[in-house]
Structure formats: C-alpha cells, structure tokens
C-alpha cells in the first residue's frame, strides 16, 4: 500500500507539471496582461516596459513558469494586478466554493443514492421508468438553463428562495445553487446506483443472504448496498474536482463570489496571476481527489490489492 501511494504520487508530478504548464501557456496566449492594466487607453511604452520588468514578463515563458512554480511551492501565488495577493483572493473565494461543493455532494448522496436504490430494486416498474426518463432530461438540459429556470421559478415567481446569494454565502442560501450544480452529477449517481444495484441483486451472495432468512431490510443495507455503492463512491469522489471547476457557471447565475467568479473576473481582466493560481489549485484538488478515490477503492473492496 505504501509503495503504491508513493508510486501514484510520483505519477502525479508529470500530470501536475503538464497541466499547469498547459494553463500557463494558454494564459500567455490569452493576450498581453499589461494592456489590461492600463484600462481602455493604450499603455505608455515606457510605463509598459517598466511594468513588464517589474512582473518579470520580459523573460522567456519557460523561465517565467519555473519562477512561478518555485514561488507557488513556497506559498506565494503572486499578486493580482490590483495589488491584492492572490492568496488573499483564494482565502475569500475557496471557502465559498467549498461550501457550495459540499451542498452539491450532499444532494448527490442523499437524493442520488436514494433514487438509485429505489429504482434499482424496482427495475422495469413505472417508478423506474419515470426516474430514468427524468434523469435523462436532467442530463440533457445544460446546467445554465436549469439554473436560470430554477432561479426564475423558485426565486422570482414563487419567492421560495432569494434569487441571488449574498456575499457571505451561508449554507441556507446555497441550497438552490448547490442543487443546480449537483443536477447533472445527481442524475449520473442515480443511474450508476441503479445499474449497480440491479446487477448485484441477482448475485450469489444476495441469494445466500435471502436464503439464510435475513430480513429484507438487512439484505439490502448490509449486503446489497455495501457492495453496490463502491462505484458510486468513487464517482462522487472524482466528481469533487469537476464540481469545483464547473461551479463557474452556477456561480455566475446566482452571483456567488467564489472560485468561479474570481476566475471569470481574472480572465475578463486578463489577470494572469489570478487565473494561473486558481487553476493550479483546482488541478491539485482534482489530482488529490483522484488519488483518494483510488485508495478508498482498496478499503471498500478488499479484493483489490495494490502492490
């Protein structure tokens, strides 16, 4: 196990370097960051040269990348062009997005797994067909449409929730955005659970458990669910990274000042330090979540042995 973890961590390094380098290059292609700094007017050439030197933009790209990564590993994500340290922006943005992600994952677990188990046990019945159809529709409607429609219905027309989220972004305000963010994954969790339950229901160990005379409830919770939820748990785990990166749309609809908002602003203002910094952290979160899921796999399924 220990050796496996070390090997995986080593494998993560090239992926991390590659992904951040790719983003670094993309942001560089994005345009001249100095131009964005002077606003609408064109920069005075002398000022531009001065700024370029100050931010180290006169050096070749690879050197900029190395310097940047060196700084990142000492905890310095650089300064946004408005003078605020990027870490400060992160400190205010990440807690909000993490709360949003937590709400989304709770929805996935509670609603997704419940629906999945119910339909998996009733395969082919009307409940199953209905839920399957609904999940298909949810998957097909893009998140921004779902978000806008729910905002219109629940927030504006019926007034159940506030249509936009305050800057504090408390948990109770994040319920609707969390549901919107979770919607597509929720549908996948439902379908995945359903398939898994329906498949394992016919397995030998379930038949044995039933034959032993165990109550149905116990067969389902202890025997069937425990085995069927392994792929679901791994899906939810790997979804963490996707949710945090995908929150950009949801945060825009509900005006949440989280990671997506900061990134969007950073991109609009061509603020390279902010963009690269946030994406670097998101890539790290994604990679670590994947590693955790792989390790969790071994814990949940003792048949898998890592060497």
């Amino acid at each position, binding site marked *: 196990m220990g050796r496996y973890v070390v090997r995986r961590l080593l494998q993560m390094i090239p992926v991390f370097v*590659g*992904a951040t380098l*790719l*983003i670094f290059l993309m942001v560089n292609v994005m*345009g001249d960051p100095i131009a964005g700094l002077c606003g609408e007017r064109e920069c005075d050439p002398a000022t531009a040269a001065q700024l370029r030197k100050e931010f180290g933009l006169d050096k070749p790209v690879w050197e900029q990348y190395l310097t940047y990564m060196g700084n990142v590993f000492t905890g310095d994500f650089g300064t946004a062009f408005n003078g605020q340290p990027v870490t400060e922006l992160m400190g205010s943005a990440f807690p909000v997005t993490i709360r949003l992600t937590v709400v989304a994952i709770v929805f996935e677990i509670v609603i997704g797994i419940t629906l999945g188990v119910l339909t998996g046990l009733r395969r082919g019945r009307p409940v199953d067909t209905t839920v399957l159809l609904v999940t298909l529709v949810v998957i*097909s409607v*893009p998140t921004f449409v779902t978000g806008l*429609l729910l905002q219109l219905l629940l927030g504006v027309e019926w007034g159940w929730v506030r249509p936009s989220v305050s800057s504090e972004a408390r948990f109770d305000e994040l319920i609707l955005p969390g549901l919107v963010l979770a919607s*597509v994954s929720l549908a996948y969790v439902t379908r995945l659970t359903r398939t898994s339950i329906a498949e394992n229901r016919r397995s030998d160990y379930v038949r044995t458990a039933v034959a032993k005379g165990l109550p149905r409830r116990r067969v389902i919770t202890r025997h069937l669910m425990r085995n069927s939820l392994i792929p679901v748990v791994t899906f939810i785990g790997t979804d963490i990274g996707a949710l945090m990166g995908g929150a950009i749309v949801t945060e825009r609809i509900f005006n949440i000042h989280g990671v997506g908002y900061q990134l969007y602003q950073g991109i609009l203002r061509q603020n390279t330090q902010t963009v690269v910094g946030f*994406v670097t952290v998101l890539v790290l979160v994604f990679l670590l979540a994947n590693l955790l899921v792989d390790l969790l796999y071994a814990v949940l399924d003792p048949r898998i042995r890592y060497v």
Partner: protein
Amino acid sequence: MSDPREPARAIAGTGMGGAMDLAASEAETLERAPGGPDGGAPTGKPRSLWSDAWHDLRRNPVFLVSALVILFLIFISLWPSAIASGSPLRCDLAKAQEGSQPGAPFGYDGQGCDVYTRTVYGARTSVAVGVCATLGVAVLGSVLGGLAGFFGGVWDSILSRITDIFFAIPVVLGGLVLLSVVTSSTIWPVIGFMVLLGWPQISRIARGAVITAKQNDYVQAARALGASNSRLLLRHIAPNAVAPVIVVATIALGTYIALEATLSYLGVGLKPPSVSWGIDISAASPYIRNAPHALLWPSGALAVTVLAFIMLGDAVRDALDPRLR
C-alpha cells in the same frame, strides 16, 4: 483493464458537462463486447454485429423518436428558410419583448427579433458545431489512441500521460481561457477548442478497444499468416474496435452542443452576429421576468437537441452491447 484504477478513471471523465463520463464508463463494457459478434444471433443464418444491431434498433422506439428529431434538425439546419421565412437578423426594437402573436408564434426578444426565426436558424450553428467537433475529435482521438494501443511501448505511455494531463483541466475553464482572446465570430475557434480538449476522451476509449481486439485469435492468425500491420489494423482490428468509439462519439455530440451553448452563455463561445441558442439564452436572461418566452424557446430547442443525441447514443449502445440481450 487489469489496473484497478481504470474503471474509476473512466467514470471520472472530463467533467465536460457530464454525459461523456457515463458514456465512457459504459463503453468500458463495450470494449469487451465486439469480440464475439455472433453472440446473440438466433438460429438460422448468422448475422454480423452491425446487422444485428440494426435489427434491434429498427424496433426500438427510443431510437426511432431520436432519429426522427435528429433528421428534422438536420433538415432545418440545411434549409431553415423552409419553415421560417424571415431573416434572423432583422429586428424591430418597437416590438421588443412582445409575446406570442400572429406571424411570430414565439414572440419577440429583447432586441425585437423574432424568437421563432432565431430558434430555427440557431439549429444550424448547434448542429454544425456538434457534428464538426465530433468528427474532429473522433478522427484525431481514434487515430492517436488506436495507434498507441496497437503499437504499445513508449509512445503509448507518453500518450496516456498526455491524456491524464488533459483530463485534469476543467473544460469550461479551458474554454474561457483559450477562447477569451478570440475575436472571430465564426464557429471554427469553438470547434478547434473542442477538438483540442476533447480528443483524449475518445483516444482512451479507442486505445482500450484496440488493445482488446488485438488479442483476438483471428488477429493472431492473420499475423501468423504474414499480414502487415496496416492490414491488421484496417481489416481486422478497426471494424471490431469502432463500436465503442461510435457510441461515445454520438453521446459526445450532444454534450458538445451543450458545451457550445454554455460557452456562448459565458460570452466566449460564438459571438453575434452568429445566431446561436446559447447567445439567445444569454441575451434573454436579464429580461427573464418580462419576457420569459425569449429564454424558454431556445432553451427548449437546446434541451430537445441534446436529449435526442444522448438518447440515440443510448439506443445504439444497447443495440451494440450483447451483454444486455
């Protein structure tokens, strides 16, 4: 597939708005499937995997409905004027936000453009983006993935690492960064971006399928008879590895259409004067209280289109996967 983390990976997918993740996970089962095309053939004359699948599809109502919707979409993308007489760019501010009326069944949007005409013309962009992006991704992904799977070795390892890198970048984010500099209002930058970030998904599927097909006895036999690599790949492996690629590509087509709309909504995808559902939804969202129809019609069209492609992919997968028979 002996590596225990592969299934988890395939499910993890790209986060490209979803459907592909599932497609990838479900295509895993398919990779093993086409090995025995005669599996479910009834007694009598044996049928190939394809004619068997076609036999199933013709009787599948889900397939028939989604195929009809898609044919209709293709028809109106080619000849939008057949059902919408006006021009999508002719707008009359005096009529802004007006509701349904004779001559304008869907009403007018915030700029006074006819929502019906714009919705009809929007199909062309969506279908064009979806089809071109899918073709590009499928060709690039299956060539790279197929060759890596066939030859193995160093290039295979490098390609696998490269796909890992692409999977670690959130797609919408990559789109925002890359497309924010583009000023062109054609569909090509968006398609180029989708191909650039989408090919690793297909390449992973194609690689797995080729590795599975490569181990079949008939491939070994052909190799023993002295068949060249190109003959092995084209005549023996490709026909048996193409099914999972087709399934994933069909479902991906739907998600590319959704992705284009999402990027346009964020303001970096297509730009006016292009006519796109994403642009219209984005433009209508501030007036959502006064003129919800301007938002609902393009949203509905978008949802039906994506749904049709995902359902088609679902039906094709069921038909090609002998395990479900």
